[in-house]
Structure formats: structure tokens, C-alpha cells
């Protein structure tokens, strides 16, 4: 059942402002169900883009010592260890045994780390979403952030003056300021490689094809098929995140297949681009200004002068 809006990929300035030089809108489909947590994407990204190191030490957060996307981490592999009530859902007749084993895991710290045996691991490679309606781009006062001919969102480092407005504007906490440098940095979707007809470094390095790069419209169709396939196999916890044009950012340029709620991966379940309400923001500002003017005028009433 084709979604009539499936191919609505247009953004505010792409392809319109590029005319004949517009390229197809490119993006990522990150299928986390086949991510093995190898972090090759993190390494490849750092190497290709010459991103400074960002050693966090040992965090104790499973195998995740990167912890989050940031100025020096443009791919981030999340590791989530979940206790799945030891097969309670899969085999109800096994509940007693399941409970005993859960108790053993609690009491002795016994963990088998096998899918279906009490713990499941979720691994997911996060990245800038290259939003159709991108808050970072909307609020940038210098025009350093721009929409490329591929429909992606990129910072021009020779223009950015480090005002930092994009940082709290992003609903995903992606973009951040590099301390020693003063400017903001994030994933460029390998803009330099795209212009040479090469795929981004992370996608090329991914050994399982969890990170898929391509034309966004095509990726969305591929993701629909994958979702149907997983549903048919009874994997109803599978869900697409950011694959539709109707969400709060009008669709992601880099979207995901997840196996749990987005917040479990540190992602917002209903992100909304802040500038959707910019009219209300200005209404507030001018109402406040008008009230202030009236207040100042009132201060001159009733007194001597």
C-alpha cells in the first residue's frame, strides 16, 4: 500500500533554489536490527573527516564510551542491554523457569548475553538526521548552515562565527561547539565525497549494511519493504523512525529502523522543529514590546511630569 506522501521529499530550499543543478536528495537508512556494534562507522567517519579524538575513558555504559553525538563524534553507536524477562513473552509456559533465572541473574550477576536467553542487545549507529525542516539551519544567523544541492544540511566552517544558536535549537542534540576551535561541527553526510560520486565513509565501512546510503526516496521504499518483512516474521517491535514526511521535522534525511521506543536509544519520540512556532515567538515578542511601551507611557500619567 503505497503512501501517497512517500516521495514528498522537498525542503524549503531544495530543490527549488538549485534549479537545474539540484541533485537527488541523498540520505541514510540505518537499519539497527542488523547493527553488530563494531563501530567501524565511528572510526571511518573520524578518519575521513579528520575529526579530533574524543576519548571519554571507561563510562560503564555497556560498550559505549562515545556516549553521544557531538562536535567530535558524528557517528555514535549506542549499546542497550535489556533484560527481556527471560523469554516470558516468547514462551509463556516457561514463566516459572524464567523467573528463577531472572532471580539468578539478579543474585549472582549471572548473565548469558545471548539473544533469547534473558538479555537482548540493541545496537544503533546514530547520526545527524539532515531534517527536512532543520532547526539548526533556520536559526543560524550567519548563513553558515545551508542546504546543499543533495538536500543535506552542512556547516560552512569559513562562515560560522560560533554564536552557538544551533546547539540548543537542534531537537536531537546533534550539533555542538568544538571547545578549542569555537565553531560548531556535525555530520556533513560526506559532502566532499558526494560531490565525487562516492558514498559517505560510514556507509562504505559498515560491514553488515546496517548503514545504507542512497537516494532518499529509494531508501524509504526499501525501508517499507524491510518493515513489512519484519512484521511478517513476527518482529512487531520493529518500527521506522523518521521515515515519513508528516512528523515534526517533516521527515528525516537520515532515518532509522529501531527495535524499541526512540527514547531508549536517546532519541526524542516526537521531535518538532522549533521554528514551526516562530510566528508565536514573534507574536510574544511584539506583544511584550507593546506592553512595555504602554507601561512606560503609563509611568508618565498621574505624576507631576
Amino acid at each position, binding site marked *: 500500500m503505497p503512501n501517497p506522501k512517500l516521495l514528498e521529499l522537498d525542503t524549503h530550499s531544495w530543490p527549488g533554489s538549485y534549479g537545474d543543478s539540484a541533485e537527488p536528495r541523498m540520505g541514510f537508512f540505518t537499519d539497527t536490527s542488523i547493527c553488530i556494534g563494531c563501530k567501524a562507522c565511528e572510526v571511518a567517519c573520524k578518519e575521513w573527516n579528520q575529526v579530533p579524538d574524543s576519548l571519554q575513558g571507561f563510562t560503564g555504559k555497556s560498550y559505549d564510551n562515545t556516549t553521544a553525538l557531538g562536535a567530535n563524534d558524528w557517528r555514535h553507536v549506542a549499546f542497550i542491554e535489556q533484560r527481556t*524477562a527471560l523469554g516470558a513473552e516468547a514462551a509463556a509456559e516457561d514463566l516459572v523457569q524464567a523467573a528463577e533465572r531472572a532471580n539468578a541473574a539478579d543474585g549472582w550477576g549471572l548473565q548469558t548475553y545471548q539473544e533469547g536467553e534473558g538479555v537482548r542487545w540493541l545496537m544503533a549507529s546514530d547520526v545527524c538526521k539532515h531534517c527536512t525542516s532543520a532547526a539548526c539551519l533556520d536559526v543560524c*544567523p550567519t548563513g553558515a548552515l545551508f542546504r546543499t544541492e543533495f538536500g543535506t544540511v552542512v556547516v560552512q566552517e569559513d562562515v560560522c*562565527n560560533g554564536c552557538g544558536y544551533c546547539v540548543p535549537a537542534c531537537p536531537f542534540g546533534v550539533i555542538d*561547539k568544538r571547545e578549542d576551535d569555537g565553531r560548531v561541527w556535525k555530520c556533513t553526510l560526506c559532502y566532499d565525497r558526494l560531490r565525487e560520486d562516492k558514498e559517505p565513509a560510514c556507509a562504505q565501512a559498515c560491514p553488515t549494511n546496517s548503514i545504507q546510503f542512497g537516494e532518499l526516496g529509494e531508501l524509504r521504499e526499501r525501508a517499507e519493504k524491510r518493515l513489512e518483512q519484519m512484521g511478517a516474521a513476527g518482529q*512487531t517491535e520493529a518500527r521506522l523512525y523518521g521515515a515519513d514526511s508528516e512528523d515534526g*521535522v517533516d521527515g528525516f534525511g537520515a532515518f532509522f529502523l529501531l527495535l524499541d521506543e526512540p*527514547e531508549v536509544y536517546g532519541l526524542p*519520540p516526537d521531535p518538532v522543529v522549533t521554528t514551526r512556532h516562530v510566528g508565536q515567538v514573534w507574536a510574544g515578542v511584539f506583544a511584550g*514590546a507593546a506592553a512595555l511601551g504602554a507601561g*512606560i507611557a503609563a509611568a508618565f500619567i498621574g505624576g507631576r511630569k
Partner: protein
Amino acid sequence: MTREAVRAERIRERSMVPRAEPQSYYGQPVLKEPVWTPEVPIYFYTGGLGGTSATLALLAELRGNRKLARRAWLIALGGVSASPALLISDLGKPSRFLNMLRMFKVTSPMSVGSWILAGSGTFTGIAVASELTGLYPALGRAAKVNAALLGLPLSTYTAGLVANTSVPVWHGARFILPFVFAGSSAASAGAAAAALTPLRDAGPARRLAVGGAVTSVAAAFTMEKTLGELGEPYSKGVSGKLTRLAGGLSLAGAALMAARGGRSRGAAIAASAVLTAGVIAERWAVFRAGFQSANDPKFTVGPQRARIERGETRGAVRRAQAGA
């Protein structure tokens, strides 16, 4: 029921109890906290002081109150001169401050605000130069009117600037926060002028200071209440302390100004100092609340999950369908 069966039942129940606290990834924030330095809340103060003083000065002049007008113009110039310096020093690349005027973007209150501040500074500078030298009086009058008009949005756009982010405590207050800032700006400008102007000419400044302080405290209180759970930063941690300090100082300063400010210059100066401390604390409370709000994932995930559960939106997620 056997012990094992009871335990198994408990496990099943546990999975059905709705979660009180929103889920998160190791408790980590979803958003990045702002990277703005303390120059920014100081600028909220100086911008509001400069902008509102320009409007106060023009009205005083129109009412024939030359002493108040002259002082308010000088305060306005001080405010709008300090502001760009503070903002430039906050930039990661201060040498590129002129890039702020590369474009004019209505989706970016920082862009619009940069133009407002640049205009305000220019017009206030011309106005004061003309006032002091007596040269080009027609140009001076035009500059005064422009400075006075721009002074109003200069005093409130900073509220829109922070509201136009993903930070829940700021974005959720987009209608009321400009009124908090309007009140704080009025109190700042009124207090400064009341301290510097002879008693018999300072009446409007005193009334502006008292009215502004009361408005700021009342609007901040309303903001905290209407934000509901999102308003928690205003009652907890650093921001909570600053909020209480701001309310106490603002109201104490306003009371002193109202009671004694018209009779004793010393009392007027003391009241101005207390009021100014109060409104700076208020700016700081709003600033710090943004950090607290961005740093706790419950403020980000909670309302979004609630919207989905109320059926207002599907969010960004579409689940697989069983079967086929």
C-alpha cells in the same frame, strides 16, 4: 500459588505497570545544553536597560522633563554600547562578528536581533551626540524617535531568542517570557534613571521601576505555574535559588522605591541597587533554567511521549504490522 508462580506473576505485572519516569539512554540528555557564556544573561540586562531607557528618554523629552530625558539618553547609550561588546565576547570566533549582518532571517531571532541592536546603537549614538553638541537637531530628533521605537523590541526579542530553541522550559514559555523580560527591562531602566535623576524629576522613573519589578515577578510566577512540570527548574537547583532571590530582591527594591524613593535620594539609590540586583538575578534564573531543562531527558521525552499517548500525534515512529 507457589512462590515461583507468585514471582512469575510479579514479573508479568511489572511489565504492565505504566512507567512513572520517561525512558532514556543511561539518563543522558536528549538535547545539548546551550554553549552560551555568562555574557549572555548580562546582555539580556544591558540590552533591556539600553532599549527601555531610550523609550523612557523620548517620552520624558516630549513631556518637557529635560533632566530625566538627558540622563535616560546617557543610560541608553551605556546599555547599547556595552551590549555588542558582551555579545562579541561570547562568540566562538569573535573576529567574525560582522557575519551576524550577512543576512536578515525572520526564522532566527538572533539575526533580527542583531539588526535591532545595530540600529538601536547607531540611532542612540546619533541622538546622544546631537543632544550633547546641539548639532544637527533635525537628525537628532529623527534618531531619537527611531532609537525609542527600536528600544521596545530590543528589550523583549531576547526572550524570543531563547524561546526559539528546543529547550522545553524556554520554548514552552514563548508567550509569557517576553513579558518577564519587558518587566525586567522596565525595572532596569527605571531603577538606573531614578538613581541618577534629582528627586523632583524622577517620578516617572520611580513608577517605571516599581511597575516593572512587580510585572516581572508576577510574569515569572505565572510562567512557572503555566509551564507545569516543565517549570520544575524554576523551583529546583541553581535556577530555583536564583528565582527566589530575584523575587525577594525585586519586591523589596520596589517596596523601598515606592515608600521612600520619592523623599530621599539615598533611599532611591539604595532601592535602585536592590532592584537592579533583583532583575539581574531574574535574567540569570531564566538562563540557568535552560541548562537544567536541556540536561534532563525527562523534560524532553516526557511531554513528547504524553502527546503520543493522548493520541495527538503519532510522533516520528511507525510500527510494523504483524502477519502478512
